[in-house]
């Protein structure tokens, strides 16, 4: 390096001649462009931007220039180095992208490989179906109520207006609990319906009462494709001032729309339950054939057995005698109640052909239903 010298003529410094600087610049840019990979680029970088590179050496000469010449020379070198660094960065980016692309291709895997490392579980569809129904009612403002499965006969029958000799009592094939003396007179049964929960809910407090109660119930049927001795019902009860059969209809319409879908006709058939009056059976228009299978042997429907209707359950206005047994003033309050069979809803809603599948606990049946239904 030359020492600062006032008499020194910059044009006399060879390394700072514009044509020399431009040449160094162009050579550097050309070298970068020619680099085939990141290693070559690294070598070119050392050669053209390192301490011993022409432009670095030229830069050092600036210090020796007279002050009036420094600016011009600095600008010349600065521009050249700027262009060189820019070219270097550009090439660096290009080559890195090239390398990345190659390496990532080499690292590629078969993402279609099956992976079952963490097994999935599932909840039983009857459980989640009951919860879905509960949620619909909870959203309407109902409470979820429950009661014991071994229940007092008084709650399962008598309080529901089914006295000892009532013909309806023999309609239900009841499991009787053995009394201490070995007879059937324990006053207890496996509940045949979720209705005793109605009575418990009414006994527990003053109206207004809006409650829904899902649960297991028992009848002495043998297990087959359409019967099971242990099955599930969901029962809802409302007791308040001024409740009517019309309110019952409105409530069930909402439930059906949430549970199965809109646009389906409901049929209300007068029926008989000792604990409600008026009583009705609710039929839902078959959502598969919408009635087209009726009297049409060419288009049979498995879902509704070509009847056009699917039985949903029973309902009615709470019989005032039931209110009386539960200590509620029938002159002030009225109520409605209904019960649905969950197995049948599951069969219809999810095309389950055989009730035994819900009972046996085969994981292949339950797994597809996942966590919610």
């Amino acid at each position: 390096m030359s020492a600062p010298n006032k008499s020194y003529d910059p044009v006399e410094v060879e390394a700072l001649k514009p044509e020399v600087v431009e040449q160094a610049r162009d050579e550097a840019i050309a070298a970068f462009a020619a680099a085939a990979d990141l290693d070559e680029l690294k070598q070119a970088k050392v050669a053209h931007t390192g301490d011993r590179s022409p432009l670095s050496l030229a830069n050092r000469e600036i210090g020796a220039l007279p002050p009036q010449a420094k600016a011009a020379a600095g600008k010349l070198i600065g521009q050249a180095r700027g262009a060189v660094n820019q070219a270097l960065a550009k090439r660096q980016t290009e080559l890195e992208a090239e390398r990345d692309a190659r390496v990532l291709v080499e690292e590629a895997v078969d993402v279609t490989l099956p992976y079952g490392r963490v097994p999935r579980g599932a909840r039983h569809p009857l459980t989640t179906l009951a919860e879905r129904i509960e949620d619909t009612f909870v959203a309407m403002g109902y409470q979820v109520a429950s009661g014991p499965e071994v229940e007092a006969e008084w709650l399962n029958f008598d309080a529901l207006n089914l006295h000892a000799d009532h013909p309806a009592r023999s309609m239900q094939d009841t499991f009787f609990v053995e009394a201490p003396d070995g007879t059937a007179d324990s006053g207890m049964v496996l509940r045949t319906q979720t209705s005793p929960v109605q009575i418990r809910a009414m006994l527990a407090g003053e109206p207004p009462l809006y409650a829904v109660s899902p649960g297991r119930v028992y009848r002495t049927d043998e297990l087959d494709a359409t019967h099971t001795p242990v099955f599930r019902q969901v029962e809802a009860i409302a007791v308040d001032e001024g409740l009517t059969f019309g309110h019952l209809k409105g409530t069930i319409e909402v439930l059906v729309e949430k549970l199965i879908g809109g646009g389906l006709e409901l049929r209300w058939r007068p029926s008989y339950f000792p604990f409600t009056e008026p009583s009705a059976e609710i039929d839902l228009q078959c959502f598969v054939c919408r009635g087209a299978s009726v009297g049409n042997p060419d288009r049979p429907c498995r879902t509704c057995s070509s009847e056009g209707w699917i039985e949903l359950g029973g309902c009615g206005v709470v019989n005032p005698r039931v209110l009386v047994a539960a200590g509620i003033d029938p002159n002030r309050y009225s109520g409605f109640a209904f019960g649905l069979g969950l197995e049948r809803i599951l069969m219809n809603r999810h095309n389950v052909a055989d009730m035994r599948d819900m009972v046996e606990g085969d994981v292949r049946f339950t797994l597809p239903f996942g966590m919610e239904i």
Partner: protein
Amino acid sequence: MRVPLSWLREYVDLPAGETGRDVAARLVRAGLEVETVEQLGTDIKGPLVVGEVLSIEELPGFKKPIRHCFVNVGAANGTGEPQEIVCGATNFQVGDKVVVILPGGVLPGPFPISARQTYGHTSAGMICSARELGMGDDHNGIIVLPPEYEAGTDAIELLQLVDEVLDIAVTPDRGYCLSMRGVAREAAAAYGLPLADPALLDVPPANSYGYLVKVADPVGCDRFVARTVTGVNPGAQSPIWLQRRLQKSGIRPISLAVDITNYVMLEVGQPLHAYDRERVDGPIQVRRAAEGETLTTLDGVKRKLSAEDLLICDNSGPIGLAGVMGGATTEILEPVTDPETGVVTGTTEIIVEAAHFEPVAIARSAKRHKLPSEASKRFERGVDPEAARAAAQRAVDLLVLIAGGTAEAGVTDIAAPRPVRTIAIDAGLPDRVAGAEYGRETVTRRLQEVGCSVVGADVLEVTPPSWRPDLTDPYDLVEEVVRLEGYDNVPARMPVVPPGRGLSEAQRFHRRVGVALAGAGYVEINAYPFVGEAAFDGLGLDADDARRRTVKLVNPLNDAEPALRTTLLPGLLGALRRNVGRGNTDLALFETGTVFLPKAEPKVAPRLPVDRRPTEEQLAELNAALPDQPRRVAVALTGERLPSGWWGKGAPSGWADAIEAARTVAAAAGVELTVRQAQYAPWHPGRCAELLVGEVVVGHAGELHPRVVKALHLPERTSAMELDLDLVFEDGRRVSGPPVSAYPVATQDVALIVDAGVHAADVESALREGAGELLESLRLFDVFTGEQAGAGRKSLAYTLRFRAADRTLTADEASAARESAVAVAAERTGAVLRGA
């Protein structure tokens, strides 16, 4: 109740084009459960005609009798020539009128008929039996018609083969619909047409010279009508129309007298009984049975009677179980034909009984003797006591008409006074109950349609008809109005429900348990709760194990499983085994549900009054009698918990997974679970954990005992857990958000040697206590036994992470905490630092 449409039309002039389905739809909306509409005769095609047998040639040499006949079928075969037919039946003679199907016809099957060669002759048609025509299950050969029908007459019409039958499931409140009269009344109301009431007959008034009847129990029998017909031709047979109506209604024709009583029962709903007067000894008496009395009923069974049974008796003793079944000694005799003279002998004098019995008495007798009969079914549901006279009259008329008898002038009619039942109903009640606007006029009209008499304006005084014993209070009347106006026409509205409080904490918890276990890979099952001793034996429970004390059922489905479960394991392990048997070998199952634990001193649950609210004491007594029914959760595992695959080896399930499932449940409850070594059936004595919340044992988990595995045919190393959800759940729990320090962590490892019998849980709690509050977390990352640990010893290696809330810890601070931890562990568990 099977209702032939052709018969129904006799009482209601239904529109001509109305099909069975149309009628069914109307009845369904009025509340009759029409289960099916059967189409009769749609599969029969004529020519089917009356034939007169002209000649019979027995063909010998075949395994069974074969007859070669010529039959006059009039002009039905187009030629008028006798029809040549080969027939295998033998119950007919030359001159008999039979039913012939000619070539071109089709019998149900379908079975097309054509002329063919058989047994060496041409057979151009077939002589038909009732069964072949789909009329019934009669096996008595071919039909022999009464002689009055002319050969060539169309038999499809004659035998009324084409019809529709509505099969109606009658609910217990609608006893009157167990009759044509009742169904016709509903049809008339549904169509707005008049009813031709078959019980509107001219009946002579009661008099003193009818058959003597004494009713000793006017409560059990409040009506007894007896009529007598003499000069009955014992050989008379039921005409075709009567037989056909019975057949279509599902009742087999038997003999004229029986057929007539059945027919009248179907028509007006009044069960009748016919006695052979010559076999009845003295006056008829109605009384309760004496203990020890017996009666041989019509079905030939000798029955021991109970003091509650209501009896029909004569001087000889019981001759019938009232309203259920008659006795053998006084029944109408089977007619016998003298082969020499052709004279038919049998019953010629008949007493017809039309009585009304108390429903409960009949229901109990029918139940006690396991004799549900057509009669008892009707009495249980309530029979119209005012129809007794008409029913008896109808039977008498038919006996006179068909059997050539003479009605005696005596009319016995014993009637206990019957209070007039009137119901006062606010005329606006139906509107208020339904939420519709009917108005008083509609209410009155509808009540009149069901047979009530109605007077009054704002409050209606309603007298229900005699055939509706089910109408007893205002709501019964409301139901009649609303159903006849149509449930479909009630406007649907939503009630205004007060704001709800959502699910309770316990309900949320129960859901969370299911979600957490399913999220951990468990599949939910629902097993039946029925168990037997074998289940407990399989679990290896001691003879005095508390779980063997069960709530038992009187009438279990399976006698080997008479009890209710006291543990979820039998059902859950059964499901596990079933799955394994079906090839599902890697399993993690769970169930939540109640178990049934009998009270220490089982009691009887009282039957409380229903006319008012029971007292709190009564309810407490009732609830105290119920078994405890806590809610449990259980899991069972076998096979691989984490499957092997291309990613590497998986992990077999085992005792640790079962215990972890309990921790999953505890986490869902937000409580801390303590695990303690224990020995408890059915678990492996060395691999069983007792699960505690605080000091309360809430359940057990671990690997099952190998003997249990073997006894229950489970895969080896099957693991299970069961705990009580009610004990785990604590209401009102709320997590406090922990402070999170941003200062760096100081990690220190420590390896301790302890006796093999020392529990890791004890070492861990000692370390935690010794480390103090700088300890953020502690993890056991290695356990080994063997030479390096020393005989009877094991090595436990932990990572301790220290962190302060307010500063960066120095290395010295962290080391001091570690040393303190080790010191406490050493003191409590004898642990020594490895290599120390």
